[in-house]
């Protein structure tokens, strides 16, 4: 392929440009920026398409490009590519220059911006740029150039598959993100649906349970009805059975009654027979029997009784008289008075116990001790006052002693320092004698050395040693003198200081006496202080004696002890007064008691309240006994008299009745009477029994009733036979059955109630449960929807994943296929371009796709990163040429190579070498060297390389 002509239409205020190209090397020196821009805009837009990768990368902007024409020859055919009014969106056209035929439609690609050259050459714009466009971008740094070289050497074409993979990866990421969000939504929805399904299921199951309960309730109700009916029937049967039982009982009663009557009749007959047998000659009534029995029992009793009573009455009278005589003293005793004096004696005894011993009346000792304690207390107070005064005096004396001592110290120190300063004299200089010795020995040596050199020299040596000694000792002397001076200075300072202190004392306390006077004052004051101390010790001793005497620890305790003594004395006086009053009262009681008890004085003995009280109490008890015994005897006598008055008439009456019964019965034998009484009693008993039996049976009315009962019995028996045929079971059995039925009914009722409660509860639960239900249908639909979306998304993701994988696979395969073929071309062209300085260009994937080259000068392999920018540009050019050469040797038409400022970083030597290579390359390819510099043209001329020049 060869470019023949480029025509670029000018924009608004720009003129149109036309460039013509020939075979071989075409050098375009375009120093004008506008020309350069227009040229590359036009060339890249027409050659690679308006939206070509160079434009996208910002290398050539298409802004301002309005259209143009590109004439080129390909496979011996001339074409013209026309892009008119690009800004209006018009599409380019392809014309056959020979036939002037429009070939556009033949080369249009479906739905794509037309890139007509693509169809013609078979190369994509990317590919075309890779092979035919060499542009040394000054903005790229070395690393970027190395990367470009690596890409070119590695892949052979600059197809940016990374961006494809990146784009697919991004889309996958987006779908993945969306998928994860959708998955979480799906899980949530699934959970919601699952939850709803459970709730729906539970609701249905609950309704089944509810329905079951309802059926159970109905069944229970039916059972209840059946049972109620059965109970009613049982109750009816029970009524009947009870009626039968009642009739049976009635029949039994009637039968029993009739049997009883028969038995009574037999008993009556028997009793009648026994009565006849037992009948006595005289019939007696019950009262008469009682009277007779009593009379028999008490026939001789009254007389004996009266005699005994009379005898006892006489005895009692005698006893009473004798008792009254013997016990007249006790009988005359007034018991109330006796009680009064007993209580007086008790009072006496109590008062006597309270009396104080006479010894305690003596309080003198207490008074003396009270006075003593008061005296001691006052003495202690005085001693305290005295001690206080002494303390004040002692403090004053202490101050004075301190003052005198200080003054004395000042005066003594002043005196001492004055003497020390006066006595102090500077130390003598021990070095001066060595100085004299030095001088002397030196002078002597001078004198001796001439006549006696063997003596002069030692003398000089001695003088030297002496001088050395002098120097040494003079330093010691200076140091000693310095120390003395410092010590003397300190003494003077101390003296000045002490004198200043003395002046200070004199200013405040007046002029100081001399040392002797001051010492006298001090000894006098110390003596006084000693005396005071001794007095204080004596006072203290006396205080301790006083406190010890009263066994107290302080004056306050002593004051309290004194108060206690005073209080004690007061209390004693009051007690003594009360005692005297008690003694008088005792005297009065004694007189009263002695005057009353003179009748018993012998028995009581001398007055002693305790003995008297006990004796009087005994007298009281004895008197009471005597009086009571007399009273008892009198009462017995009175009652005996009353009994006699009652018994005597009764005895008379009994005698009369005995006479009566003797006459009536004809005998007074009591044994006969007894037999008759027993016979009468037997007859009466039989009469009683007969009366009872007759009452039961022998009545005419009763007989009629009996007849009636017999007819009743017949009727009852008939009814019983009838009823018994209706109900055979006993009432107890039926009652048991009824109870069982009722219990069953209760059980059913309870079960029914339980079921009803559970039913109501479940119904209520269901009412709550069925509220606020989301629609499961809607939620299921939404779940289906999300599931479908998820499925689509997963499909999309898989598709993207597959696309990415297949792209990577394809690229790798191509690379593997292409790289080994391309490598020899690159090695050859690098060697040629660098004139053999760099050989064995190698891309090593094992080392992270390291690109290295063997440097002949160094004799070793170097990574290309270490080479200069000019060398890198050489490599870049070499690889581009290699690529171009590689593809054109595949049988395709050679492509032109457009070099844009590709030699900026080449030195002259490199440029010359490169031009030679390009000259060879230009044999098969068209070369368009576009530069804004002027150095290429002279070198080409110098190297005698053919080229066509444009500017």
């Amino acid at each position, binding site marked *: 392929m060869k470019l023949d002509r480029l025509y670029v239409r000018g924009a608004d205020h720009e003129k149109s440009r036309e460039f013509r190209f020939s075979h071989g090397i075409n050098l375009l020196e375009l120093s004008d920026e506008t020309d350069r821009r227009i040229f590359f805009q036009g060339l890249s837009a027409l050659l690679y398409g308006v939206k070509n990768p160079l434009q996208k990368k910002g290398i050539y902007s298409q802004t301002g490009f309005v259209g143009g024409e590109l004439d080129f020859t390909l496979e011996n055919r001339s074409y013209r590519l026309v892009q008119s009014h690009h800004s209006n969106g018009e599409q380019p056209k392809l014309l056959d220059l020979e036939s002037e035929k429009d070939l556009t439609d033949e080369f249009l690609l479906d739905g794509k911006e037309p890139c007509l050259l693509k169809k013609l050459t078979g190369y994509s714009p990317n590919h075309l740029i890779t092979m035919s466009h060499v542009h040394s971008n000054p903005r790229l740094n070395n690393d970027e150039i190395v990367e470009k070289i690596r890409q070119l050497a590695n892949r052979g074409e600059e197809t940016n598959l990374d961006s*494809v993979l990146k784009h697919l990866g991004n889309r996958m990421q987006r779908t993945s993100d969306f998928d994860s969000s959708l998955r979480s939504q799906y899980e949530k929805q699934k959970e919601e649906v699952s939850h709803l399904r459970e709730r729906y299921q539970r609701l249905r199951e609950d309704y089944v349970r509810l329905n079951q309960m309802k059926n159970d309730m109905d069944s229970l109700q039916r059972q209840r009805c059946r049972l109620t009916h059965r109970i009613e029937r049982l109750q009816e049967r029970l009524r009947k059975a009870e009626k039968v039982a009642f009739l049976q009982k009635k029949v039994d009663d009637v039968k029993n009654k009739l049997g009883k009557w028969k038995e009574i009749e037999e008993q009556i007959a028997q009793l009648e027979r026994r009565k006849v047998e037992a009948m006595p000659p005289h019939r007696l009534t019950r009262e008469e029997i009682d009277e007779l029995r009593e009379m028999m029992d008490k026939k001789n009793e009254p007389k004996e009784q009266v005699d005994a009573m009379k005898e006892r009455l006489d005895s009692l009278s005698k006893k009473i008289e004798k008792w009254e005589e013997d016990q007249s003293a006790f009988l005359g005793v007034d018991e109330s008075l006796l009680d009064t004096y007993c209580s007086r004696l008790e009072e006496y005894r109590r008062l006597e116990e309270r009396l104080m011993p006479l010894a305690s009346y003596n309080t003198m000792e207490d008074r003396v001790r009270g006075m003593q304690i008061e005296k001691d207390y006052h003495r202690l107070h005085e001693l305290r006052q005295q001690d206080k005064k002494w303390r004040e005096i002692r403090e004053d004396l202490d101050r004075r002693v301190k003052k005198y001592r200080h003054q004395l110290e000042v005066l003594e120190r002043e005196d001492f320092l004055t003497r020390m300063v006066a006595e102090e004299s500077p130390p003598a200089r021990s070095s001066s004698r060595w100085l004299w010795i030095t001088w002397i020995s030196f002078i002597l040596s001078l004198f001796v050395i001439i006549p006696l050199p063997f003596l002069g020299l030692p003398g000089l040596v001695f003088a030297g040693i002496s001088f050395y000694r002098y120097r040494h000792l003079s330093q010691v002397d200076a140091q000693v003198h310095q120390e003395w001076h410092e010590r003397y200075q300190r003494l003077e300072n101390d003296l000045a200081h002490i004198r200043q202190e003395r002046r200070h004392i004199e200013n405040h306390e007046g002029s100081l006496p001399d040392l002797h006077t001051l010492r006298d004052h001090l000894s006098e004051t110390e003596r006084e202080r000693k005396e005071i101390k001794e007095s204080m010790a004596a006072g203290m001793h006396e205080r301790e004696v006083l406190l010890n005497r009263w066994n107290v620890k302080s004056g306050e305790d002593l004051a309290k002890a004194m108060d206690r003594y005073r209080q004690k004395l007061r209390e004693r006086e009051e007690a003594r007064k009360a005692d005297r009053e008690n003694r008088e009262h005792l005297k009065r009681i004694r007189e009263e008691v002695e005057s009353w008890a003179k009748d018993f004085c012998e028995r009581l003995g001398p007055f002693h309240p305790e003995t008297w009280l006990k004796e009087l109490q005994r007298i009281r008890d004895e008197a009471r006994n005597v009086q009571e015994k007399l009273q008892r005897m009198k009462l017995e006598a009175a009652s005996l008299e009353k009994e006699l008055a009652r018994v005597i008439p009764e005895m008379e009456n009994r005698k009369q009745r005995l006479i009566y019964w003797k006459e009536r019965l004809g005998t007074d034998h009591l044994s006969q009477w007894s037999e008759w009484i027993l016979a009468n009693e037997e007859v009466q008993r039989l009469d009683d029994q007969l009366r009872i039996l007759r009452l039961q049976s022998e009545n005419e009315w009763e007989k009629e009733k009996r007849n009636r009962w017999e007819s009743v019995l017949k009727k009852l028996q008939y009814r019983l036979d009838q009823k018994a045929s209706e109900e055979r079971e006993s009432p107890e059995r039926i009652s048991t059955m009824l109870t069982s039925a009722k219990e069953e009914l209760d059980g059913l009722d309870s079960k029914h109630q339980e079921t009803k409660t559970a039913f109501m509860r479940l119904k209520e639960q269901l009412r709550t449960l*069925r509220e606020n239900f989301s629609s499961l249908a809607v939620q299921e639909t939404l779940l289906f929807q999300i599931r479908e979306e998820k499925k689509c998304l997963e499909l999309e993701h898989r598709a993207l*994943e597959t696309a990415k994988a297949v792209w990577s696979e394809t690229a790798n395969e191509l690379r593997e296929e292409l790289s080994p073929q391309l490598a020899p071309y690159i090695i050859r062209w690098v060697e040629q371009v660098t004139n053999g300085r760099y050989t064995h260009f190698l891309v090593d994937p094992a080392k992270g796709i390291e690109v290295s080259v063997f440097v002949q000068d160094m004799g070793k392999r170097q990574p290309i990163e270490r080479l200069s920018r000019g060398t890198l540009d050489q490599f870049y050019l070499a690889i581009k040429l290699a690529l171009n050469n590689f593809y054109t040797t595949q049988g395709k038409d050679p492509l032109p190579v457009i070099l844009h400022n590709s030699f900026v970083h080449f030195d002259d030597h490199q440029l010359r070498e490169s031009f030679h290579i390009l000259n060879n390359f230009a044999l098969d390819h068209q070369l368009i060297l576009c530069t804004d510099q002027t150095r290429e043209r002279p070198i080409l001329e110098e190297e005698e390389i053919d080229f066509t020049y444009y500017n």
Partner: protein
Amino acid sequence: MKAFTFIHTSDLHLDLPIRGWKGSTEELLLRQREYRQTFERIIRLAKDRQVHFLLISGDFLEHQTIAWSTVKWIMDQFHQLPATRVFISPGKSDPWIKDSFYRTLDWPEHVHIFTDKWEELVFEEYSLRIIGKGKGENVSNVALPAWVTGPAEEERRMMITYGDVNEADLVPLELDYVALGQNHQRNVYQLDNTRNTVVCHPGSPEGISWKETGERTVTWGQFDSDGLTIEHLPIQTRRLERIEVDVTACKSIDEVLEKIVQSIPERKDREVCWCLKITGRRDPGLILHPDQVSQKLKERSFFHVEVQDQTTMGYNLDQLRSHGGLLGAYIRKMEKKIKEAAPEERMVLYRALEQGLDALLKEVKYL
């Protein structure tokens, strides 16, 4: 012999989750309401026409997903028809099983639900004998009642059951009308017997899937002195329709939309639920997202459009393949994979081919 009328319907599938729904939740709720509205329309029709019997032969409800509130609402609807005897034959989606609301709830007195055993009901005033049976648990073959035998003069006979009966078994029963369900498409035919038994699948009254397009009906019938007359009355609340639009020449989404709108010129048809199948060769520059198309159609007053993208790739693979290099290699590799893949994987690989080309040609501008 008194005349009587009836309405026969089936397959309402109330509260059925809609599989493949691609609209919004609001639209879904609206659509669910519309299913209810359709039932309301049936009730209203029965009321207006004062029919004596309402026959629902199967799949009335969706057992697993029916809400209690829906059942309550159904009962309320039935309460509005006190003069009409309602017969429900449980079907496959609402079988007569233990936890069916048919069994656990108290239905109105005039509603009779057939169990999984054959039942016979006689209405002497109409000289009518109705036999019916619902679908129970794990019962697939319906043994027809042996006690229905021979032609009985002066007696009208109707059968209500779910669809799984053999036509041959029906012939000897000499029925007048057989109300069946199960089949969502209307199907009415007569048997070759003495009474020329009319067998009727009324079809679903409201479209549930994209197969149930067009007008949906219920069957109205009358027995009088002239015999049985039936009529199919449209009942649906909203129609479902399908349409196919070729977008081969369309360069942009607007052009596609325009073409769709042109295909559905009637404005009233925009109320229909559309299943739109987009076909043809898609321009490589055209990015077609079904959801986007659906949304844009909604903006143009369409109620609901479900878009199914069935377009083919816009790339001329023959031409692209001839370029060689990476592009050619990629296409050849993908085509080889597609050829070797299992049928279910092919769709993914086609999509991968397209995605790969899009990435290279649209994003990287390889050509």
